[in-house]
């Protein structure tokens, strides 16, 4: 009993010490450096594709997590109208700002992929996604040379803050990064981000922004919301690079 108390005491001391280090600014910059090392190490081999599965591997249900809907009258109206008037705006550091209807999105060259979704919490689900490659849309708008990140604007709010995410150009131009409008051959269900969501397959679930309303090319995300590049990054210090 005494030894157990001693062990628990030592563990608690270590846990508290680590919490202090993590809150310090040298601690933070150390973690960010480690994140950059992981990103660099994972990009050594370039644009390799993640596994695409067979139809038989699709999970019976695709769990919705985080936002599972958008609680506004506007969204309810869009949903009732089958998202016929939903727009996806392409803005920021582009030569030609664009505005897509859902119909325009469906008329672009399409990619269909059966991929695995890995939530940061640890669970996984497999689904078939269809939509245009983000690269097609970005090439259509023409990125200015200063553009370094792509920011995704969303219709949903969580705990009072608007959801958003950002990725770098490596991930934005990856062949499997698509703007999906279909899951398993059907229009996206509301819990999975209807009518449009991002699929960025080499990263964890929270990067895959749902209920997309806008794509914005930026040089930095320092001035956007909390400045850390995404909703969970701002709110709970989630890692901006979510490939680990």
């Amino acid at each position, binding site marked *: 009993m005494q030894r157990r108390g001693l062990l628990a005491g030592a563990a608690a001391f270590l846990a508290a010490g680590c919490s202090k280090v993590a809150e310090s600014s040298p601690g933070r910059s150390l973690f960010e450096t480690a994140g950059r*090392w992981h990103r660099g190490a994972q990009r050594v081999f370039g644009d390799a594709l993640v596994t695409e599965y067979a139809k038989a591997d699709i999970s019976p249900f695709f769990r919705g997590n985080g936002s599972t809907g958008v609680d506004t009258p506007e969204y309810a109206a869009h949903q009732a109208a089958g998202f016929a008037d939903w727009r996806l705006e392409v803005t920021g550091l582009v030569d030609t700002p664009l505005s897509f209807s859902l119909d325009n999105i469906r008329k672009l060259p399409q990619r269909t992929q059966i991929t695995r979704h890995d939530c940061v919490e640890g669970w996984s689900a497999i689904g078939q996604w269809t939509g245009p490659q983000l690269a097609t849309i970005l090439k259509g708008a023409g990125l200015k040379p200063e553009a370094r990140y792509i920011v995704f604007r969303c219709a949903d709010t969580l705990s009072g803050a608007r959801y958003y995410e950002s990725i770098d150009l490596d991930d934005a131009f990856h062949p499997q990064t698509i703007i999906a409008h279909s899951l398993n051959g059907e229009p996206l269900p509301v819990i999975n981000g209807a009518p449009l969501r991002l699929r960025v397959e080499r990263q964890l679930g929270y990067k895959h922004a749902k209920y997309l309303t806008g794509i914005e090319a930026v040089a930095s995300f320092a001035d956007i919301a909390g400045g850390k590049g995404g909703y969970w990054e701002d709110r709970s210090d989630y890692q901006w690079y979510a490939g680990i």
Partner: protein
Amino acid sequence: MKRHALSTRLWHWVNLVCVVILFMSGLNISNAHPRLYWGKWGFDAADAWLIVPRFPEWSTIPGYYSLAGARDWHTLMVWPFALGLLMMWIAMLANRHFKRDLMTTREEWRWSAIRRDIAKHLRLDFHHEGSKLNFLQKLTYGLVLGVILPGMIVTGMGISPGMEPYLAPLIELVGGRQSMRSLHFICAWALFGFFVLHVVLVLLSHPLKQMRAMITGGRENAA
């Protein structure tokens, strides 16, 4: 003649720090979704082969629930852990520590010899002639250095979506990402089991001499 090379001692303590922080931050990560599955996918309690108990805050890093904070520690410490193990293997092969002290011989695999070794251990008799380590020690250290520690790294990378394109055949070999994740937990608990056994056996066999040997190196025929 020194009993433990400087590289062995240095790695031993660096590795201890890494493993303890990785394990405790891992418990915090486990609390985020405490269910384990086999196969390519899994999210439902009904599909889980194990529902893991929730780990108390004193046992986790940080000392409160923070998935982001725990992942920061986990992905930071994996660098000294993995590079340290790589360097230890290079050193062990270069200074012949592996061949001399850890590689088992054919005679040691005879059942009568193994039985005698187990019986001696159960009597807490740790004397052995000739080589530095006896058969059970060689087998255990060999498994830890050659299977469990590298296994932690490989299964950890197998869970990472950014590494998936490069490790896909390996992930499929074990049955999928959720199997990799389960194996990561199993390796971690095997390592915890080794840690407990290792500390208990050090305490049972001249703990001060053993500790001194792992810090200063110690001398052969010293006591």
